[in-house]
């Protein structure tokens, strides 16, 4: 008999990390996370009474997974009513996630905006800790303002170990920040070998569109670009239909897609 994948299981909140007023990371217990979960995959967080929301994994420990959640809807509001030691009901992991083998040995560029940093945090962090696995690593991350920065501790580590470039839409008068969009940074990149340069782009749809246009302008082959799509996955199992784009189900075929595939997908 088929397994009932709709019933969530309780997972304990081991730690809550506060990034901004509205964005916290919830570190959840998940046995064997390191083997079972990949960056870019997602879980359904289940709040009885409020429903479910698909949330990407923003970090993977030996037996923990992180969800970096912005308080924007009924489900996520309710998640914020939970504290360390409480449990949340979750189910997953779902989706394909990023495959390190796609990027090993390349000159890797990761461009991410706002909460779009969450799904790629595991990728950036992996190569920041294993710089020898790539032939150079650049991360361009953008936030609305210094107050909206996520993963401050990671940013420090990344800044020391990889080429990190950060932008803020507005510095709100604070010194030391570069104002502007991530798209403005892309033309400044100087990859050594374009054919071996690979890129991952995650963020709001217009940001992804313009960033990818910039990367192609730079000469990076289209087949070397990946992105992650955000849709409303109600089931995560290829059934409910909400995330379907053309002949593709984002939940089971994605959410990570090669750009060559993604550019043919029309909502």
């Amino acid at each position: 008999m088929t397994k009932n994948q709709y019933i969530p299981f309780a997972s304990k909140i081991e730690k809550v990390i506060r990034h901004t007023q509205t964005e916290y990371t919830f570190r959840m217990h998940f046995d064997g996370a390191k083997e079972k979960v990949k960056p870019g995959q997602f879980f359904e967080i289940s709040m009885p009474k409020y429903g479910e929301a698909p949330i990407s994994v923003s970090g993977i420990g030996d037996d923990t997974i992180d969800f970096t959640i912005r308080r924007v809807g009924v489900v996520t509001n309710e998640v914020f009513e939970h504290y360390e030691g409480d449990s949340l009901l979750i189910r997953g992991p779902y989706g394909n996630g990023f495959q390190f083998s796609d990027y090993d040995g390349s000159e890797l560029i990761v461009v991410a905006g706002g909460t779009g940093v969450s799904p790629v945090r595991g990728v950036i962090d992996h190569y920041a800790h294993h710089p020898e696995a790539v032939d150079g690593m650049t991360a361009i991350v953008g936030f609305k303002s210094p107050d909206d920065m996520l993963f401050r501790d990671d940013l420090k580590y990344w800044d020391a170990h990889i080429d990190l470039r950060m932008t803020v839409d507005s510095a709100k008068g604070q010194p030391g920040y570069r104002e502007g969009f991530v798209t403005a940074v892309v033309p400044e990149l100087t990859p050594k070998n374009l054919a071996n340069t690979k890129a991952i782009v995650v963020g709001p749809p217009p940001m992804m569109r313009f960033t990818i246009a910039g990367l192609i302008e730079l000469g990076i082959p289209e087949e070397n670009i990946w992105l992650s799509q955000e849709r409303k996955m109600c089931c995560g199992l290829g059934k409910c239909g909400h995330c379907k784009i053309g002949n593709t189900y984002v939940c089971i075929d994605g959410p990570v897609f090669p750009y060559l595939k993604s550019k043919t997908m029309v909502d």
Partner: protein
Amino acid sequence: MGYIADREQFSDFIDKLKEDYEIWAPKKFKGGGRFSDTDAVRYAVIESPDEIELNEKSAYSWKEAVLPPSETLFYFAENHAGETEGPAKKKLVFLRSCDLAAVKRMDQIYMKNGDPDYYYERRRKDMAFALIGCSESCENGFCVSMQSNMADNYDFSVDLVDGHYRLDCKKEAWDELLKMAGAASADVVPQRVTENKVKVNIPEDLSYKVGMSSMWDQYDSRCINCGRCNLVCPTCTCFTMQDVFYDDNGKVGERRRVQASCMVDGYTDVAGGGSYRQKNGQRMRFKTLHKVLDFRERFGYQMCVGCGRCDDICPEYISFSNIINHLEDGMKEVRGND
């Protein structure tokens, strides 16, 4: 084996089946129609063969037998979730060829797109199907164009001709029941529609490019995104999760899945207020291409079975077969402009 049974014999046969099966069939509800003094034909659990509507087409399809419009998945009590009980009885569903073809589409999504679906499977695995023959084409159907007029994966077929039930039984165990009921052997072939008044033509080079044509614009205003077309469709599979909590104890409740419609607001909402396909014309394009393009790309055959129920139910008299037939003009408009 073929049989001819009179009313008594057929009734005996159904009574025997009722020991193991819940019988789902189209049934006429007097005065239950959408306009005054009209009847409704819908699916219901029936007790006697006289209740089975063998002539008129049902407004809603067979699918509620396997996918209830609202289905409780499990109950919550604080942080515990308890699964609902499965169906107590097997189901025998009376349905026409178009709907029988739709069973395959429903199975495709629920059993073969990713892992099998637990709740679907537990209903579906014990289901049997009785084909209702079609002596003539229904008004808006285009089953011949969609090649769903000859579906033959039934357990038995039934045609009521001159007061006699003509049956083609494929299940040996049920052959015995029919013989016991006294049905006479005969050569029986279910009645089939071989021509519809409505015909559709799907362009061979149909592609997503057709989304750029102006053919969808009229639906921005004509379509009122009520979603009825999706709910009556025998092949529409989408659902949305819905949590319900009890008034007298807010810690206890249930999670349901309810049928969803890609035409209705909210279907694509993502966190933070974003959504895709705001215009009704874009939603019409999305639905149309699912039915006649992208399902085929993914699974190798067309999703739409041409039952025409979407045309029957649309309060704005939008015809889906007309839309399909306009795809050629739509493609003409966009061919070549890459």
